């Protein structure tokens, strides 16, 4: 706390306090680390210091444990050199220099402390403090304020200037639901502006006006809420004062403790410090140590975690005999007995195969592992599936077929080395925002960009970003476009012959070559039905093949099609053809929708695979697991999720244990799902909330949020990170304990005392995980599998010297059009996507302030299609498909091409998944969410409700 009085002159020299000034141990090195391999030697305060060439003197000092005062510098952004608090003298400069803004040099001698420097620093601080409220005692940042720390560091005890013209009465902007901007506390260091530009890439902030009138301004003199700000929190993180401050800190005060954990939203898997005071979580701050996010965050992980304490959390187990009955609250034991008896009776009456389980990509690895084990060992069948079925199952199939393993090839950092980046069916700035920011940094450095997407996503054109080629293809034609790109490359002899000869199966390549050269795969042929200019396909193909290191990133716009698996294989073919595999900057990278899609698949929650992607028919694995688990294991695959629903309607499938998933809302053709769930005799739902599926449930096990349990998540880079228990489970049991107790009630004993023991078992039984342990994760923060004796530190890049499968396998990817066609009755094609502030079906985000940005799903329609239907912005429209109809409001925008409409699926009342069809990927049954033929008609004007 500052104890400073305005008035008397105090000019005494005070020794520089060189202790670390870091809040809860967050070390700030002042400027970013140089990427140079060269090391230079210099002397700082008579101490020889070695650091990377290109580092600032400030960074070198802090690395050496010499903590200079600083205000405008922080290591997430480039130096600006405005506050001059970090001044030092050197043998190479005549006057004191800003150490943050001056690079180290070989032979440099630096002095950080002298009477002269101390006086200068104190004078600077005095000026800052003279225009700053002296309310430290009541300030929310007390204990976490760099200005306060620096005043202490330079020994400022008094301010000589009396009150004059100042900024102390400036108005506070409280418009953002999560943080405030208090201009009276702003020291105009511009850290926020640089964070928004350099880290986030939104360019929402400027310092407007000059001199005394200077002020931080969001967008065009707007409030934060009305500006372009996307609430990523980077500016708040960077602010050294309480000027930008989390409202939760203002409400609860600064935290007393923190633990590192992993975001429970998207597949980027950002690491956060969960800062808390006992059972009260104060805030989540992105961890610099997190290798997926390196200190950045998005609005969801940073701020939208309050759903965990939402008032409608269910904290008592519930049972009922009939779905029309009222729920009866019971003890945990009664719930387990009731559920286990029901399942046992069903199996006795209808056979072993009449029940199954669904895991979720929101569950931890340990929970998922337990559920698949419970299904295979306690239920005695392989009827276990995961919600990855409805998102990335084609990735599993396609990458395993071509490369030999069901995972992306790179780490996120690799994109920093890419010369060309191609996005197909992915919208990272909305769906994977922290990775989106990382990509934008690379694009601003000059990498080229290809976007394959029907919609003009933000990356096509946004602040300082413009795609070199945008292929606005007709939904459902991904395979054809990728085949055409490969055709161009082959016809123009642009393939990487060396890579093909050394790394790929030559016979399969020759067969593929013959196929791809066929004229049906030419851009001219494809352009006719993909509705794009063939020249754009040609140009994109040439850029991808010749532009240097080229990386492909793709999302659900690839997988959720009837040709999803073929598209994944066509992407893999393209990467192999051009040698874009096995090094930094290249690769094939699925952007996983949910936090633990990768982990759910790794842990064996598909009905045909044991943990580690080993088919159930593999005798060696099955025998090993059967022995370890003391159970008879089936060698035939079980039912997939959609097959379970079909079997339920046919009367063959009677009971389902569903953990963390809401198929009644998230699966396609939800009317069909509802019919199937109603047909079952015992549905068990384990969740935080009574979700849509719970309407059809007979048992409800209250779940625990990611803040209430230990475990691990595996992100889209195969990175395994710890989830740490911050608070106690509201319902008294963590999810893994619930599954274990349910298994025991079913008669199959499980006795783990901590999730670390579950991971130990996974490691013991899964070759790609054999070195993974909680101890290793605690030491390294995270590791990317494979992590075994061959790769003890994990594997950042896969397929370096050879493919997991040996030689790369080219697959023939015939373009088979979807059966879902537009026509006279349903002339438009509906495709769906996500928006930044919401997540999936909104179960979590709709329970937070994020709904201020997006409280309904809106239909985007091209102005030509809108005009021909008399639709104006905001009008209510009916959206009819062959399956069902729903109603939404519409806006006309040329982001979407004629003939295509687009919406999100975050709000249950919009019923978007009610109208999607049951068509699915040919190989995996992943639903075709991305193509539904629809008609749009105006219902009534926006002013009418």
């Amino acid at each position, binding site marked *: 706390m500052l104890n400073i009085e305005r008035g008397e002159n105090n000019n005494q020299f005070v020794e520089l306090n060189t202790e670390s000034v870091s809040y809860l141990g967050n070390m700030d090195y002042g400027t970013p680390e140089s990427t140079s391999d060269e090391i230079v030697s210099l002397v700082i305060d008579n101490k020889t210091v070695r650091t990377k060439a290109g580092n600032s003197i400030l960074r070198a000092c802090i690395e050496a444990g010499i903590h200079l005062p600083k205000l405008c510098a922080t290591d997430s952004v480039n130096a600006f050199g405005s506050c001059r608090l970090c001044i030092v003298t050197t043998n190479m400069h005549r006057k004191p220099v800003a150490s943050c803004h001056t690079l180290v040099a070989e032979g440099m001698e630096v002095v950080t402390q002298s009477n002269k420097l101390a006086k200068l620093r104190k004078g600077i601080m005095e000026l800052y403090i003279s225009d700053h409220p002296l309310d430290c005692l009541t300030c929310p940042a007390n204990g976490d304020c760099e200005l306060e720390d620096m005043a202490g560091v330079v020994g400022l005890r008094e301010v000589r200037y009396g009150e004059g013209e100042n900024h102390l009465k400036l108005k506070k902007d409280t418009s953002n639901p999560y943080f405030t901007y208090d201009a009276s506390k702003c020291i105009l260091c511009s850290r926020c502006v640089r964070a928004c530009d350099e880290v986030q890439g939104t360019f929402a902030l400027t310092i407007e006006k000059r001199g005394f009138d200077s002020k931080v301004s969001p967008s065009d003199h707007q409030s934060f809420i009305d500006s372009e700000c996307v609430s990523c929190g980077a500016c708040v993180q960077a602010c050294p004062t309480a000027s930008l401050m989390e409202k939760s800190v203002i409400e609860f005060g600064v935290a007393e403790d923190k633990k590192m954990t992993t975001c429970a939203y998207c597949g980027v898997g950002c690491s956060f410090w969960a800062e808390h005071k006992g059972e009260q979580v104060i805030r989540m701050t992105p961890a610099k140590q997190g290798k997926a996010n390196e200190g950045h965050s998005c609005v969801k992980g940073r701020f939208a975690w309050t759903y965990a304490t939402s008032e409608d959390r269910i904290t008592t187990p519930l049972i009922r005999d009939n779905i029309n009955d009222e729920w009866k609250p019971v003890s945990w034991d009664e719930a387990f007995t009731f559920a286990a008896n029901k399942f046992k009776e069903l199996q006795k009456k209808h056979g072993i*195969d009449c029940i199954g389980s669904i895991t979720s990509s929101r569950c931890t690895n340990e929970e998922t592992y337990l559920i698949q084990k419970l299904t295979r060992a306690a239920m005695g069948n392989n009827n276990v599936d995961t919600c990855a079925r409805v998102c990335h199952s084609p990735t599993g199939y396609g990458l395993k077929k071509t490369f030999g393993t069901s995972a992306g090839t790179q780490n996120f950092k690799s994109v920093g080395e890419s010369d060309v980046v191609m996005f197909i069916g992915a919208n990272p700035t909305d769906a994977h925002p922290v990775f989106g920011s990382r990509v934008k940094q690379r694009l601003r450095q000059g990498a080229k960009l290809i976007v394959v997407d029907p919609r003009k996503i933000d990356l096509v054109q946004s602040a300082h970003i413009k795609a070199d080629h945008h292929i606005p293809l007709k939904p459902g034609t991904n395979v054809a476009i990728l085949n055409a790109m490969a055709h161009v490359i082959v016809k123009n002899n642009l393939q990487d012959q060396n890579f093909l000869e050394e790394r790929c199966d030559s016979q399969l390549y020759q067969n593929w070559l013959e196929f791809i050269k066929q004229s049906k795969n030419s851009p001219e042929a494809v352009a006719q039905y993909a509705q794009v200019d063939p020249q754009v396909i040609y140009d994109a193909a040439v850029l991808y093949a010749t532009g240097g290191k080229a990386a492909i990133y793709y999302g659900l716009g690839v997988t959720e099609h009837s040709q999803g698996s073929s598209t994944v294989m066509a992407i893999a073919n393209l990467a192999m053809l051009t040698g874009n595999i096995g090094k930094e900057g290249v690769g094939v990278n699925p952007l996983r929708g949910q936090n633990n899609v990768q982990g759910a698949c790794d842990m064996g929650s598909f009905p*045909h695979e044991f943990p580690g992607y080993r*088919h159930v028919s593999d005798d060696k694995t099955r025998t090993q697991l059967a022995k370890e688990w003391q159970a008879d294991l089936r060698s*035939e695959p079980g039912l997939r999720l959609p097959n379970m629903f*079909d079997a339920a309607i*046919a009367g063959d499938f009677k009971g389902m244990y569903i953990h963390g998933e809401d198929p009644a809302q998230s699966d396609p053709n939800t009317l069909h799902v509802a019919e199937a769930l109603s047909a079952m005799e015992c549905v068990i739902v384990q969740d935080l909330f009574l979700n849509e599926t719970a309407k059809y449930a007979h048992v409800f096990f209250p779940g625990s949020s990611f803040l209430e349990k230990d475990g691990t998540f595996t992100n889209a880079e195969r990175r395994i990170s710890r989830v740490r228990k911050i608070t106690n489970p509201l319902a008294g049991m963590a999810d893994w304990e619930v599954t274990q107790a349910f298994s025991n009630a079913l008669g199959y004993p499980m006795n783990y005392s901590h999730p670390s023991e579950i991971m130990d078992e996974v490691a013991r039984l899964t070759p790609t995980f054999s070195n993974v342990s909680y101890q290793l994760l605690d030491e390294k923060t995270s590791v990317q599998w494979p992590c075994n004796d061959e790769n003890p530190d994990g594997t950042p890049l896969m397929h370096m010297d050879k493919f997991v499968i040996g030689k790369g396998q080219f697959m023939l990817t015939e373009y*088979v059009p979807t059966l879902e066609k537009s026509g006279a009755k349903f002339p438009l094609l509906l495709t769906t996507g996500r928006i930044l502030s919401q997540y999936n079906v909104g179960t979590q985000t709709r329970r937070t302030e994020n709904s201020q940005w997006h409280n309904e799903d809106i239909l985007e329609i091209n102005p030509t299609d809108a005009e021909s239907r008399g639709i104006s912005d905001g009008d209510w429209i009916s959206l009819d498909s062959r399956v069902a109809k729903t109603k939404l409001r519409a806006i006309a925008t040329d982001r979407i091409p004629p003939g295509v409409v687009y919406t999100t699926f975050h709000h249950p009342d919009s019923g978007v998944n009610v109208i999607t069809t049951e068509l699915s990927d*040919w*190989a995996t*049954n992943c639903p075709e969410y991305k193509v539904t033929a629809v008609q749009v008609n105006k219902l009534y004007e926006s002013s009418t409700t």
Partner: protein
Amino acid sequence: MEANKLLLMAENICANFSAYPEEQRTQQTITHIEQFWTPAMRKDLKSDFSTNEQAYSPALKLVVKKI
């Protein structure tokens, strides 16, 4: 399971292997169905085939006969 759904799924698999020569296409489709379908689904498809062969494409007929 409903026979027409199984038939649609099987035809779809077959169509996506259609770029391969006949023998490979048939084998790939069989392997796929064996790896990913439950025994009950395969049985239901075969049973439907026995009464509804005319609804099957020539390529799928070759497959079902060998499952």
